[in-house]
């Protein structure tokens, strides 16, 4: 009896959360297409998300490309298939590892800082102050972050794709002693536009989710420093989980026909 009540409460709480999140996302998106927008704030968020995430995303990408080359060499060595390694590297990076790893890294970096910043503004009444100064908090705080996430993640992933392939090239050429020209040619032959485009679409969705979860958790945080801490954790965890789930769904959408 008590157990059922507990399950009921958890389910209801979860549904309430989903409902609130959906309304939040809808409100945010509707504000994205209605003026006024704040170009200065959008620009600052874009620099924050795009430019300052470059080192960590680049580092992740280059080591992923390198380890992919190394791993597939141990598998393919018997066939001495240089082209197969180039193939594995470029497909894995563009389709999966580029967007997912970049998404997870940015979720940790940006999702956390968004939730902390907006959460602190909530508990110190700065968000209330915004609305008394005739400024819509959604337009001022949420919209710039969502737009920046939506547009900067694909750019980041494009860079990650290139760096990741380069990592595979480094290991193949300098460690495994492959012919550079053959490696580059087989990479270029194998990769299809859809591989890259699907990865960029994923990136845009992930960017949206990261900003959404960062803003949502910050916006509804309560109860001082502890509440802000909880919001930060929730933002990162929920964004990461959503990234993994939507990654599967999008892969199915793009490639399983």
């Amino acid at each position, binding site marked *: 009896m008590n157990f059922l009540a507990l399950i009921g409460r958890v389910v209801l709480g979860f549904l309430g959360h989903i409902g609130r999140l959906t309304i939040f996302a809808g409100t945010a998106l509707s504000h994205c297409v209605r003026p006024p927008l704040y170009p200065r704030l959008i620009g600052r968020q874009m620099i924050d998300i795009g430019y300052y995430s470059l080192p960590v995303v680049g580092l992740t990408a280059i080591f992923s490309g390198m380890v992919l080359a190394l791993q597939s060499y141990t598998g393919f060595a018997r066939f001495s298939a240089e082209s197969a390694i180039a193939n594995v590297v470029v497909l894995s990076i563009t389709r999966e590892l580029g967007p997912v790893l970049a998404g997870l890294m940015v979720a940790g970096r940006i999702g956390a800082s968004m939730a902390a*910043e907006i959460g602190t*503004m909530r508990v*110190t*009444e*700065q968000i*209330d*102050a915004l*609305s*008394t*100064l*005739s*400024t*819509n908090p959604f337009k*001022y705080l949420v919209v710039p972050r969502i737009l920046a996430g939506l547009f900067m993640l694909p750019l980041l992933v494009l860079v990650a794709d290139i760096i990741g392939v380069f990592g595979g090239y480094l290991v193949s050429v300098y460690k495994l002693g492959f012919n550079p020209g053959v490696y580059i040619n087989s990479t270029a032959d194998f990769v299809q536009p859809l591989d890259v485009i699907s990865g960029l679409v994923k990136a845009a969705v992930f960017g949206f989710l990261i900003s959404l979860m960062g803003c949502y958790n910050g916006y509804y945080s309560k109860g001082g420093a502890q509440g802000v801490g909880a919001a930060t954790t929730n933002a990162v965890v929920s964004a990461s989980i959503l990234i993994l789930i939507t990654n599967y769904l999008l892969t199915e959408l793009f490639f399983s026909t």
Partner: protein
Amino acid sequence: MSSAPKIHLKDVRKAFGDKQVLNGIDLDVAPAESVVIIGGSGTGKSVLLKCILGILNADSGVVDVDGTDVTHIPASTRGEVNKKFGMLFQGAALFDSLPVWENVAFGLMQGERMPRKQAKERAIETLAKVGLAASVGDLSPSELSGGMQKRVGLARAIAGNPEIIFFDEPTTGLDPIMADVINDLIIACVRDKGITALSITHDMHSARKIGDRIGMIYEGRLIWVGDAKTVDRSGNEYVDQFVNGRAEGPIKMQLRR
């Protein structure tokens, strides 16, 4: 009262969960009048202000500003109404991502679309009115002492030339001298300019000094409203206990919630 009230509250109620915070508040504030609401911590003083400002929605009752009901207006009209308001928050609620002058000029730049250069001049003029040097304008709010933050918050509240100003515990947390400086500034910037003011405080010295009328909130109702000069002979034992700061009396502190 001869003229129509600037603010008219009728039976305003607000509950959080099963906790009834405001339980039928009635109050009229005349143009250019300064009303101070006193009451213990956690009695719903801040909630009352937030209901008038539209940060919280009252569960029932009427909030009229200049004769129009603002209880259920859409967010777009709310921005227009809020242009009449200035608000000094309990913790000043300055935007810590912006320098002091942009805090003061925030409403001018966002709400009224004033160019930055002109807005900065206005901000520095307003800072001078609250006794702060122009050089303070370029500091970050976190570099200021509590008293200076309150002064900047006051400058931000008066910068947009509001018709009505709300003060949430303007002197709380300040030393007695700084508290009196703030009182004098409120008198100079608000009462002497004919701006309508609604303040809340539990500082009796401040209440006597800045208020024309004083009202006392207890258990969600205004149990006494009268001329500030008569607060010592209100004939109300609750008011007497509060004004004299006695632990014994009809008001029992709830030590457990």
